[in-house]
């Protein structure tokens, strides 16, 4: 392709304003500022231009223009992501899809919903509730995060052991390619002929295309859901209890664990009645028909008691169930109250390795002199260690980042992976080399190349550059010039 000379910023702004209302083409620093980062605010940068189109045709036109001049494009939804996947590119366009917030259609009989990408996750279930239906994946940020972002990250939540991740709950996606063509992936049927492009797109972090419409499956709301809370005086027993529930042939709707520090922080924050002297707390939710839930709650409570639970409590009302979950869902901001800043990790491990991983983490915690609180999607092995630090103490964040990296390496070593649901973005790009070898990374690049030969879609994210490792230098430079005063508290996230 012939290199066409790129217009300067003012000329580009003019070009975008020719087809997008002027106030939705943002080029001044002050108005751009809120877009400089996503939920992981320690990584930030200013884009060249922010655009907020509100029709698919406008998105196509943005892509065509950027393609013509080889301008990087970073897509952004609500900006709740936790891996700096939506951090702007300083030479590029930030394509914000928040104006695409309409629920286009709900088909109650076929149990599906057709959505614009900027529809909030929780809004889907709210709209579907009048039909007795809901949308399965429920990341803790569901009040704010959007379905387009959920597709980009393959978001999970506390219910994914039973109901799956985003990838299991999609039927169809409309996507604008880097060239500006609109393609349709998947169908209203449960599978499509040819390659499973849906699997490839889901979790691709905006590296392969811009999602402009999403059709999701809806599930019937369970007749009944009840949660049982069990306290244990050591983490190993609590971990074993999780395995024993599953060995009984019961798949809970949600199965979460918190360690001592997380319990204390959450209790102080929401007063859910968590026993603050416990070393580990399990929250196990069972759902289904009335009869089934009654039968299984009794079975699980009996099991926890036999295994030595120091106390158990079964929710007796919807309000009590919500309260017990509130502590868990607020664990991140709760931890934020006991520390100046925290850094959330997202490794996955085989459950049997939990005690070993926690012990090793304690050693690392001592080594670095930084405290760690743990919340754990115990059912599916997704661990969220929260490293407590103070960004105003010089060197603290660097230490934290190194500590976090060691945790992820530990996860890979025991047979797990570096990210279960938050994604790689810019944040975990170094650890990609721990999980994948050079040949595997080369295969990823070949896939990327099939969609985006010039590499203008979200460059520098997701997959590390081979050999010369340019993005490492970019990362180090960025770290050198950001003030560390920004809080990393990200509100409610899984």
């Amino acid at each position, binding site marked *: 392709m012939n290199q066409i000379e790129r217009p300067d910023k003012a000329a580009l702004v003019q070009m975008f304003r020719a087809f997008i209302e002027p106030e939705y083409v943002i080029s001044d620093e002050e108005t751009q500022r809120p877009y400089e980062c996503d939920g992981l605010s320690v990584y930030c940068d200013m884009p060249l231009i922010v655009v907020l189109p509100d029709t698919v045709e406008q998105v196509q036109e943005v892509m065509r223009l950027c393609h013509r001049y080889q301008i990087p494009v970073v897509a952004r939804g609500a900006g709740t992501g936790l891996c700096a996947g939506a951090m702007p590119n300083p030479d590029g366009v930030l394509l914000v899809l928040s104006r695409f917030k309409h629920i286009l259609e709900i088909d109650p009989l*076929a149990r599906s919903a057709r959505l614009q990408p900027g529809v909030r996750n929780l809004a889907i279930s709210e709209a579907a509730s009048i039909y*007795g239906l809901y949308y399965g994946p429920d990341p803790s940020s569901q009040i704010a995060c959007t379905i387009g972002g959920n597709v980009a990250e393959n978001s999970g939540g506390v219910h994914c052991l039973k109901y799956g991740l985003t990838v299991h709950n999609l039927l169809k996606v409309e996507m604008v390619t880097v060239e500006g063509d609109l393609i*349709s992936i998947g*169908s209203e049927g449960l599978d499509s002929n040819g390659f*499973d492009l849906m699997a490839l797109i889901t979790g691709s972090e905006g590296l392969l295309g811009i999602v402009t419409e999403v059709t999701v499956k809806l599930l019937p709301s369970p007749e009944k859901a009840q949660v049982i809370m069990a306290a244990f005086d050591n983490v190993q027993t609590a971990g074993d209890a999780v395995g024993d529930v599953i060995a009984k042939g019961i*798949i809970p709707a949600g199965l979460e664990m918190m360690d001592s520090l997380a319990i204390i922080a959450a209790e102080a924050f929401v007063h859910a009645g968590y026993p603050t002297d416990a070393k580990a707390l399990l929250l196990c939710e069972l759902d289904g028909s009335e009869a089934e839930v009654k039968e299984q709650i009794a079975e699980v409570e009996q099991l926890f008691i036999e295994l030595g639970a120091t106390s158990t409590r079964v929710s007796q009302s919807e309000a009590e169930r919500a309260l017990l979950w509130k502590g868990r869902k607020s664990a991140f901001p709760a931890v934020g109250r006991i520390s100046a800043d925290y850094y959330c990790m997202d490794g996955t491990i085989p459950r049997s390795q939990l005690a070993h991983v926690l012990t090793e983490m304690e050693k690392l915690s001592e080594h670095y002199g930084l405290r760690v609180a743990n919340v754990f999607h115990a059912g599916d092995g997704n661990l969220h260690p929260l490293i407590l630090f103070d960004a105003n103490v010089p060197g603290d964040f660097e230490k934290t980042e190194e500590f976090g990296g060691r945790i992820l390496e530990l996860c890979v070593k025991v047979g797990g*992976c*570096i990210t279960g649901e938050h994604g790689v973005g810019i944040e975990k790009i170094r650890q990609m080399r721990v999980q994948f070898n050079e040949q595997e990374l080369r*295969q990823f690049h070949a*896939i990327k190349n099939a969609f985006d030969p010039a590499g203008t879609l979200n460059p520098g994210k997701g997959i590390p550059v081979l050999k010369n490792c340019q993005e490492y230098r970019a990362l180090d430079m960025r770290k050198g010039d950001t003030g560390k005063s920004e809080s990393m508290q990200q509100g409610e996230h899984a």
Partner: protein
Amino acid sequence: MKDNDISHELIERVKQASADGTKLKIMGGGSKHFMGRQSEGEPLNLAEHSGIVSYEPIELVLTARAGTPLVEINAALAEHNQRLAFEPPLFDGKATLGGTLACHLSGPGRPWNGSVRDHVLGIRLINGRAEELRFGGQVMKNVAGYDVSRMQAGAMGTLGVISEVSLKVMPMPAATITLKREMNAAQAITEMNRLAGQSKPLTAACWFDNHLYLRLEGARSAVDSTVSQWQGTVLEDGDNLWTQLREQQLDYFSSQDAPLWRFSVNSNAEHFLPAEDWLLDWGGSQRWLRGDFAVDELEALAERAGGQVSLYRGGDRLQDVFHTQPEALRQLHQRLKKAFDPNGIFNPGRLYSWM
């Protein structure tokens, strides 16, 4: 039980083929020759690459080499009261794990329990550069890198040699009951969709010979209470019906020589070609049609029903048998094929004539 690792041999064969341009026809148990287009190539036999590598019942994860027969996996799982919830067809015991993923075959429970693709956690894949690569893993959640593992589902082996697969496994349901009701196809479609919207332990719904069949699975109490609330007579030996449906051993599948078409459509799409010979499965989203038809006509009907059609068995297998791809997707397929298999050695033409 065979435990045999021939991955080095497989890699050498691929390396050689890549160097001299030999086309390879990937084979497992040979149970799914009838699927896809007819393709030529030197057989690359995966049947010898067999055995369960690891199985952790409480982790709900099993890893096995691609040539492992499904019957062997099912037997190992049954010892711990677990199963493959996507109910793959066993095809006289010949079906292997690798072939099941490559052909994306799942049984009657698919709309409720997920497909083989939904249960895949990770794979080893030998690409066209003879590199054995690992994607995904043995944990339930993994969003690092592109999802190459699930992408293999339905690729018919055209992206590489799947050499090992890790899967999520699930507990066996405690109780199963099948209900039977008389009604026509159009009524059945409405009824299957209506019932699937209720929070009941429904895990399969099909219609043929003017009867609707519903399978309830789960906790004893949940199954029993649903039977008391729903219409229909309890079918003795109901399990046998679902097995025969899964294995395509029902009279519908065996009684004729006519081509068998598979529609994957919106579960609630209106019944079309009502005078023809249909079997409806997956609560209405997988529909089988017997007979000689023009492909164009069926593709138009499938698209109107929100989905696609393929020529599943029989008919002319030198022509394209899978739903026509629009030009933009066709190009994307060709570029992805090249990304995995630059010399075009794996199952050429098996998925589409142009690839």
